[in-house]
């Protein structure tokens, strides 16, 4: 009953926000902005840039709110816009260069939890090159498939897989380095 009420409340707020009701727009922003800034921060190292991207993405959210069909999750819809905005930003900077590696070997990674806190996880992800970081975020965090990632980034499925493999390898090295550093063995 409580979930239904919350859903109806969200539906009403969205309805008002479509009509450019600034109070409803602010409610949506206040509710989702912290989470969406975290999403943008995954892709962009600089927090100020991440915030700029979030604001731009919220502009698109409110501009296209009338197209939201209320069938799926509203949060998921906003998150998708945020991710697309971040990808567009990174690609516009021309920092990304996806190289297809046909001879990559799928290593067996340690299937264990790292035990790092969220800040360390973010610092490990930040250490990745933009291409690796993008594909790792899309696959491991957002849950996209390689085919979808290939379509989004304009690369082949194999390239996405090889990039992910290299990203994981680098992450494992970084996690080990961080663990050793924290244990004082390095």
């Amino acid at each position: 009953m409580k979930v239904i009420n919350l859903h109806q409340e969200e539906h009403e707020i969205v309805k008002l926000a479509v009509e450019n009701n600034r109070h409803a727009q602010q409610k949506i922003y206040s509710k989702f902005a912290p989470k969406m800034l975290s999403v943008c921060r995954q892709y962009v190292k600089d927090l100020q840039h991440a915030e700029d991207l979030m604001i731009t993405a919220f502009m698109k959210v409110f501009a296209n709110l009338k197209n939201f069909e209320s069938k799926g999750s509203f949060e998921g819809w906003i998150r998708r816009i945020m991710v697309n905005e971040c990808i567009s930003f990174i690609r516009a900077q021309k920092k990304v260069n996806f190289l297809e590696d046909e001879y990559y070997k799928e290593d067996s990674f340690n299937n264990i939890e790292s035990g790092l806190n969220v800040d360390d996880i973010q610092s490990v992800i930040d250490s990745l090159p933009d291409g690796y970081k993008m594909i790792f975020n899309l696959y491991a965090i957002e849950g996209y498939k390689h085919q979808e990632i290939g379509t989004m980034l304009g690369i082949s499925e194999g390239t996405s897989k090889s990039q992910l493999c290299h990203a994981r390898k680098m992450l494992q090295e970084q996690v080990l380095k961080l663990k050793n550093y924290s244990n004082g063995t390095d």
Partner: protein
Amino acid sequence: MGQTKSDKEFRNKLDQRKITPSENAWDRLDAMLTVAEGKKPKRSYGWLYIAASFLGFLLIGTVFFSNTEELIDVKRNDVVIENNTPDKPSENTATTDTVIPQAAAENIASADTAEIKIKSSIHHHQSPQSNPISNPVPAVNEIQKNPELIASGNPQRQQSGSAINQKTEQLTTPAKVDELLAAVAPTQNNQNQKTSVKVNAKSLLSQVDGEVNLSFREKMLRTVNRSYQEVAETVSNRNIQQ
């Protein structure tokens, strides 16, 4: 290669993370939204321009057609002016002040058909069909000059009218013309001396200067002047001959 435990760990921890935006983030977004909303009404300006231009054309059209109607009214007034020209109205011709332009003039003129026909035949006046507007003018001018011809109570008028009526059938013969004129001329001379009516077409037309189109006014002035001059000249010549 599916999701590893570390992937799930990363996802769970990152999903739970929340980063509070800066305080002015909403203000910036608010300003951007305001600007975006301010751009939308520009679309309606196009319709405003179209509506304004449509109204402009409508106004121009209204002014144009209203001017055309005024010109038509002016023409009608000119005809009335010609028929109301007598400066010294007679007893009965005072009724002609009511505006019955051509029909009334023709009715009056028909009573004096003899005189008019005589004068027109003698002086080889232009054919009536050639200038329908100026046609009543000579007749009216004659009437104005000779109000006694119209006055029904005047015995001379009756005598001369009866005499003319008797001779109406013989008007076409030039020999009878002199006799008819001889009968009419004394009365005309007397009345001309009494009335000495001089129709000043310019002064009459100047009364309606503001209403008359310049070109139309000139045309009408020429017509009235020409007719008046012809009638005056023929009458004076005939009187001199007599």
